[in-house]
């Protein structure tokens, strides 16, 4: 604990830009020397894909090598560069502070994307992991709108996802692909990437309309009963798709064109985060919380609770549909089995692990569960013992999830950290205290 505090204090003057610079250096080191020099001399067969987790679990003899690799490539350069560069990243961050916030955020995001692109560009496996993680972030945030902000226990998310995935897949297959089932392409293929966003939006709208089947019962019932209804909805969608031979039935549907490269998914994810953040921090969005905490009081305070509930469901389902559409185009194959109880368990695990009522929590949850899921793959069956165990422990110590009831404050996140440092630390402490009271 003491060590962590000292560590925090030591790096308290590093702005976000400094961390980005450190990570960029680390990624460049891996890009240029990772294979030829570092992993070769450490006796590793190739660049460790996920920080060496896979190699360590497969061949315990390689553990020192993998740890050494992590230290040399990631830990030491990031910490060193971040700390040493603080003297010029801080003034730079101060310059950015004077820019409009949106511009500063976009610049940071571009830098972040560059890092992500370089890191995942090392091999295809990493690209796939990053893509699926980004899609998971969309799904987790969207279910957080319903289960966290609105406080219902909805189990229909895979159903919404399926609606979005199938709708957008059908649109792209009919319009841009010479498909066996749907016949020749109706439009020239070159239009595809440009019209793809509309296919995704259509998928989102389909999911939003489908969500009405769950939203309307939610006027009269809550809790366990609504959970059963929403679970039923998920199975209805799954069975319906299984029995529709036009769209492949249980065999599934393949051949979606590759319209979802990393940058596109990244942009959609950021768009999702931005829109959901705007919504949940506005008064209309906070109405979701009031309906969750006390419906009668909300009604008496002029809040339209029925409209609010419908909005929550449709909005959450819309983004689930968009996520489903991206998912279909990442894998280029979908079948009804993908949108069943396993997917539900995964999504619920991500949102409850990460934290209710918080976008940051959702991001953390989605990334952790996804990366853990991949990293522990060599353990095979034990993976499904370890991940639930972690979940149980999180639930014991943090009943609302790791980071709950906390919103992103972009200004605070990106600001320079050299001036009046004491004040900053004090603010942080105060914030922690307020949070501590919350985490009852």
């Amino acid at each position, binding site marked *: 604990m003491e060590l962590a505090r000292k560590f925090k204090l030591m790096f308290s003057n590093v702005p976000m830009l400094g961390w980005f610079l450190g990570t960029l250096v680390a990624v460049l080191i891996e890009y240029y020397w990772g294979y030829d020099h570092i992993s070769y001399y450490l006796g590793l067969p190739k660049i460790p894909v996920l920080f060496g987790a896979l190699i360590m679990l497969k061949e315990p003899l390689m553990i020192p090598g993998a740890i050494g690799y992590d230290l040399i490539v990631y830990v030491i350069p990031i910490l060193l560069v971040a700390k040493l560069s603080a003297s010029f990243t801080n003034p730079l961050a101060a310059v950015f502070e004077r820019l409009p916030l949106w511009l500063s955020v976009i610049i940071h995001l571009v830098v972040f994307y560059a890092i992500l692109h370089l890191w995942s560009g090392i091999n295809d496996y990493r690209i796939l992991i990053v893509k699926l993680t980004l899609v998971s972030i969309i799904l987790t945030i969207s279910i957080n709108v319903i289960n966290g902000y609105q406080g219902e226990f909805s189990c229909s998310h895979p159903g919404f996802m399926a609606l979005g995935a199938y709708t957008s897949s059908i649109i792209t297959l009919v319009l841009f692909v010479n498909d066996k089932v749907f016949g020749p392409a109706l439009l020239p293929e070159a239009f595809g990437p440009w019209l793809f966003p509309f296919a995704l939006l259509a998928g989102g709208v389909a999911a939003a309309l489908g969500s009405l089947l769950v939203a309307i019962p939610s006027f009269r019932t809550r809790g366990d009963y609504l959970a059963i209804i929403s679970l039923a909805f998920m199975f209805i969608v799954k069975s319906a798709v299984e029995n529709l031979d036009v769209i492949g039935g249980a065999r599934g549907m393949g051949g979606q064109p590759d319209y979802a490269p990393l940058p596109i998914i990244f942009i959609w994810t950021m768009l999702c985060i931005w*829109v959901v953040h705007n919504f949940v921090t*506005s*008064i209309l969005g906070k109405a979701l*919380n009031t309906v969750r905490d006390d419906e009668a009081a909300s009604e008496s*305070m*002029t809040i*339209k609770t029925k409209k609010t509930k419908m909005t929550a469901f449709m909005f959450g389902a819309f983004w689930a549909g968009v996520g489903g559409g991206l998912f279909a185009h990442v894998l280029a194959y979908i079948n009804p089995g993908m949108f069943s109880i396993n997917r539900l368990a995964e999504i619920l695990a991500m949102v409850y692990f990460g934290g209710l009522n918080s976008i940051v929590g959702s991001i953390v949850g989605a990334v952790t569960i996804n990366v853990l899921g991949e990293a522990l793959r060599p353990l095979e069956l034990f993976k499904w013992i370890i991940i639930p165990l972690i979940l149980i422990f999180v639930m014991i110590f943090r009943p609302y999830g790791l980071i709950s009831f906390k919103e992103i404050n972009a200004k605070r996140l990106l600001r320079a950290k050299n001036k009046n440092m004491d004040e900053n630390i004090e603010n942080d402490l105060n914030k922690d205290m307020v949070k501590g009271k*919350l985490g009852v």
Partner: protein
Amino acid sequence: MSALLSVKNMTHYFGGLRAVHNYNLNIAPQQIVGLIGPNGAGKTTVFNLITGVYTPTQGAITLENENIKGLETNEIATKGLGRTFQNLALWRHMNVLDHIKMAHYSQLTYGLFGAFFNTPTCRREEAHVEENSYRLLELFGIKQHAKQMVTSLPYGAQRRVEMARAMATNPKVLFLDEPTAGMTPDELVQMIKIIRQVHEDFKVAIFLIEHRMKFVMDLCQHIQTLVFGEIIAEGPPEAIQNNPQVIEAYLGKEDLT
């Protein structure tokens, strides 16, 4: 004198139980009316019927000569009936400032599109609401708690938050359901002060349920006594205080032997 809020012959049944019978009420602008009665008399039910939580079986309710019976609770609230609750009904994951902001819900015009994309209209309206909320907080003496969670506040302050929140909806009639329940004598005196101040500053009519006689006699210009869902006595405080029927309902029949 035309009544601001008027209720005529309101009767309500819960299944076979007659909870309220032939209830009449007239509140003039800026009048303070009290509703007293023993436990289980149906006082809170009367509140819930007028504010639209339940729809009365019979009777008419009008606000400024406009029918409000059968509307949704939020529509009635928007038309100008603000209320507090007997057992505090605060939103436990929200801070004080957000409580007051939320009560401005019906005054927003920016719509979902504005909320999703944080349009200039949305930002302007929210800034306006925030300013107004701080003003209210200051008036109720809880500005220093603005960023605190409501659950961490002392009881008296929570009551104030509830009142401030009700006032944020811009009510014409304010319904207070036992505003001093569970308060210390000190807090009681404070509460009387606050209610007087609200009454003067906002020119609002007040309808309140209360058990403490001192409080009711101090504040109200007109008092109704409700027993088993029926009004047994009505009038100015002095008349009620000495009314034998009221004394009987509260203390039991006087033994004459």
